[in-house]
């Protein structure tokens, strides 16, 4: 009996060990994180560890230009090409002595930004950079550390749009200090807190050569020109710390959800209300900020401010916006908006959210359905408690010539490529649902 038991135990152990071996082998072959995408889509690693990858753009020959936030071997832009090893795209060119976020291709030029300037590089007929000596398009833009990254979009009429983020959270007399009141009018808005318009092909422009296209926008990292209706759309990073700075006004359990992250359709002269107002996604309206006498309900001057076209949960930090114009993806994705959420840090009650790519279907330039999570799993964990724990953080989106999407991560410098094949099942079945997707 005893011997039998030992024998049984032995075989059980053997079985366990062999299972474990198989398990380990399988795990070793899995990608670094599982990026969950809807059925029919495939997310594969395109490049790994290329530096602080912010925005990116793909030329017509599938070469990917990436703007880096930190110099890599002295360069702030790297150009990548697919190699024979999957997931290991090669750096085929590297240039630019400055760090930054924005990058775009328009009318035969590659445009790129530092935190104070916009440059451009002439491209040849193969869409390769002719000279790595750039032309200076805009200079002297404000950089006071906070919200200093400059993102760009170009229209089809020769204009360049630059986000100039507010160097402040909510324009308090004492930035981010408990109970400090707001400056009125807010002086930050003279040189920041909005979108500025410049001429795309004029050299050495400064503030005086451009114009403030729209104001009352705290900070934008993701923006895109919508070619379907010829309008600019931007994603605002909503203000921080409503609850912690004004604990008497706000219910501690609700502060994680205030205010919404907003998508704006931006027309010339519009005012979106920062710092005087914020959008409450529970009441579905703009209300007065506590720094300006708000109590969580009062509307006041906010009645005159523009509402968002889409409101997303608070603090998720939308860092890229792209209207899909390709034909690879199913019809419902055509002209819709993809948004890369960098992931939150200011959701201290119930833990962090974001760290995914969302999609909003559009028809005729208007949202035609609720937003949904499109690609998820970048954080590499179910629940992020401290922001620094997240493994990867989506920051840029670009569309390839075949209609595939490229997603950059500025934490470890990975890039994923998302493709669609209606004949194959997705690597992970089902759309990446999450209860956040039921929010407005």
């Amino acid at each position, binding site marked *: 009996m005893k011997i039998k038991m030992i024998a049984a135990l032995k075989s059980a152990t053997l079985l366990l060990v062999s299972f474990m071996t198989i398990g380990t082998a399988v795990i070793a072959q899995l990608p670094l994180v599982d990026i969950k995408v809807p059925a029919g889509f495939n997310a594969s690693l395109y490049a790994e560890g290329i530096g602080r990858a912010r925005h990116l753009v793909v030329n017509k020959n599938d070469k990917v230009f990436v703007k880096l*936030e*930190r110099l890599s071997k002295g360069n702030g832009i790297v150009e990548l090409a697919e190699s024979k090893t999957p997931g290991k795209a090669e750096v085929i060119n590297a240039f630019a002595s400055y760090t930054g976020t924005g990058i775009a291709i328009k009318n035969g030029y590659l445009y790129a930004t530092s935190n104070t300037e916009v440059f451009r590089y002439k491209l040849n007929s193969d869409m390769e950079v002719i000279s790595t000596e750039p032309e200076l398009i805009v200079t002297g833009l404000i950089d006071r*550390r*906070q*919200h*200093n990254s400059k993102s760009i979009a170009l229209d089809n009429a020769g204009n360049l749009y630059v986000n100039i983020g507010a160097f402040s*959270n909510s324009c308090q007399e*004492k*930035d*981010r*200090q*408990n*109970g*400090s009141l707001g400056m009125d009018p807010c002086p930050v808005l003279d040189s920041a807190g909005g979108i500025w318009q410049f001429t795309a092909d004029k050299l050495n422009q400064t503030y005086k050569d451009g114009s403030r296209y729209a104001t009352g926008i705290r900070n934008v990292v993701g923006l895109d020109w919508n070619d379907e209706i010829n309008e600019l759309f931007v994603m605002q990073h909503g203000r*921080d*710390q409503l609850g*912690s700075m004004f604990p008497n006004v706000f219910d501690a359990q609700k502060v994680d959800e205030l205010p919404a992250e907003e998508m704006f359709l931006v027309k010339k002269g519009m005012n979106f209300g920062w710092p005087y107002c914020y959008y409450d996604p529970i009441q579905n309206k703009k209300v007065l900020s506590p720094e300006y006498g708000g109590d969580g309900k009062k509307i006041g001057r906010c009645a005159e401010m523009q509402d968002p076209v889409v409101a997303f949960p608070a603090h998720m930090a939308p860092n890229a916006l792209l209207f899909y114009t390709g034909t690879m993806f199913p019809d419902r994705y055509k002209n819709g908006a993809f948004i890369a959420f960098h992931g939150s*840090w*200011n959701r*201290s009650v119930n833990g962090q959210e974001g760290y995914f790519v969302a999609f909003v279907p559009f028809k005729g330039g208007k949202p035609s359905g609720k937003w949904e999570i499109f690609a998820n799993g970048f954080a590499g964990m179910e629940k992020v*408690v*401290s*922001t*620094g*724990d997240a493994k990867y953080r989506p920051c840029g989106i670009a569309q390839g010539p075949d209609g595939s999407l490229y997603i950059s991560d500025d*934490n470890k410098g990975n890039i994923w490529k998302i493709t669609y094949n209606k004949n194959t099942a997705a690597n992970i079945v089902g759309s990446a649902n999450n209860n956040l997707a039921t929010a407005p």
Partner: protein
Amino acid sequence: MKKLAIIATLVVLAASVVFAQAKQSAVSKEVMDRGKTIYETNCQACHQPNGMGVPRLNPPLAKTQYVVGDKARLIQIVAKGLNETIIIDDEEYANPMPAFPQLTDQQVADVLTYVRNSFGNKATPITTAQVKVERAKIK
């Protein structure tokens, strides 16, 4: 001979460091508990539950000289706030730190003692008297 002297000095130094650390860990549970509560209400949103801050935005409190180093400078940061470029391990942090006039001298001492002895930090406590001295300088 010189070598021996250097080694002896190093041994003495190492021993005193170990002894000092043993002494430093003697922060009372009461102070740590009070400090933790203040941290959670006033600091955690930016510096995060793990004390590692937020990349690019809010600096870490773990294992940085700003926290475990000079006490006067640390107290001044809480007393006056800090709005200048902070670079720790090549990372630049963008958000300003506000002043905390709403905290009493004892609360500042408790929370600073807490952060100096959390997230892997081990450093001497900060006293209410030290906070009082530093705050008096800015009034």
